[in-house]
């Protein structure tokens, strides 16, 4: 190996090494698996786990919201997929929805997830017949309305409304 190749090699080792170290310190993964996921995001090869996502949708349809969210969160640990975040938001909405009053804590978490979904893909429209709200903006508006305290809350007809 000639001297110049060795010198090029040294410079490459140092540049790549520092890039990896800066990336690790900036992204601060909590473990090796998280480090691998974040590297996938950085390299642009990150994707959701389809099997876990499908399982989450099935659990969501069976009204097993906590289990569904668990599957969605495992399918998209980096919170980078708009559809997964949309379903997480919807599961919070359905679980927190009440005929008399809503669970504000669950609605607030749902609102955060809906905002994330809207930021990730503003044009997202979910093709799912079991859902009445199919865009993150519609879901976000529904969650925001649910969190607001208005005179409309005292309307007795509210007892006959349907969960979307």
């Amino acid at each position, binding site marked *: 190996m000639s001297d110049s190749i060795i*010198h090029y090699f*040294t410079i490459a080792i*140092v540049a790549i090494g520092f890039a990896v*170290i800066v990336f690790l310190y900036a992204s601060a*993964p*909590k473990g090796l698996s998280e480090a691998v996921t974040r590297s996938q995001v950085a390299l642009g090869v990150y994707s959701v786990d389809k099997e876990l996502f499908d399982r989450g949708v099935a659990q969501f349809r069976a009204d097993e919201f906590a289990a569904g969210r668990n599957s969605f969160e495992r399918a998209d640990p980096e919170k980078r997929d708009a559809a997964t975040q949309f379903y997480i938001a919807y599961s919070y909405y359905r679980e927190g929805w009440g005929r008399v009053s809503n669970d504000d804590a669950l609605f607030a978490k749902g609102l955060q997830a809906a905002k994330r979904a809207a930021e990730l893909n503003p044009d997202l429209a979910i093709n799912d017949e079991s859902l009445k709200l199919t865009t993150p903006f519609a879901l976000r508006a529904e969650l925001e309305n649910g969190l607001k305290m208005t005179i409309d809350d005292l309307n007795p007809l509210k007892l006959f409304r349907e969960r979307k």
Partner: protein
Amino acid sequence: MKRNEIEIADVEIVTADHPKDRPSEKRADRTAYLVVPFLFLIVTLLGGMRLAQSDNSFVFLPPELISLVLAALTLVFVFRAEVLSFSGWFRSADPILKKAANAAVLLTLFAATSQIYNGLLPEKGMLHWLFVFCFFWAIATNLLAEMPARKIMASFGTLFGIAFIAKYIVLASLASPSDVSWLQRMWENPGREAIALVIGKPEFSPSTGYIHFVAIALYLAGLYMLPRKI
């Protein structure tokens, strides 16, 4: 006849003195260019790494400014004491590529040194500044004393060893289980809790010490492998 012998002897002397023709010199150069930066990069990665006390998850702490200052002073000292020769690493006759490669190696040395200080300094509290003072004192004393390179390396090895024992063995013994209430800890071991309150309790898992033990060993190995001139 005599004249011929003298000529042959001269040629042999010239050949043997040329460093590039010595296999051992070439091997040392390759080690310095290929192995040493790799070792120092691993040290740079491990130096700021801690394990959280609660669940042993990774925590990455970038070096504080004081670690960078200590590292810079250490490098100044290393060059001034001729452990590494500046003119031997940056010869004006060398091509730019070689100078860039040498600078890259020295950059990894600087980063590793700052991360070694990052790992050895307690994160906060009175002891942090006490350790900083001790490191400054040691570097200043070594700067004034004219010692051979081997003794300087031994001096740094000892300094790092003492700091490591103080932080990861003595101070780590002050760590108490996080699931026990403060009152219970105080009742069970008031002396330990009182000392921990005054000098600052370690915030990270004791197993962090193993990571830094490896980091210091690799750093010293890298320093040992660095040639004075390249």
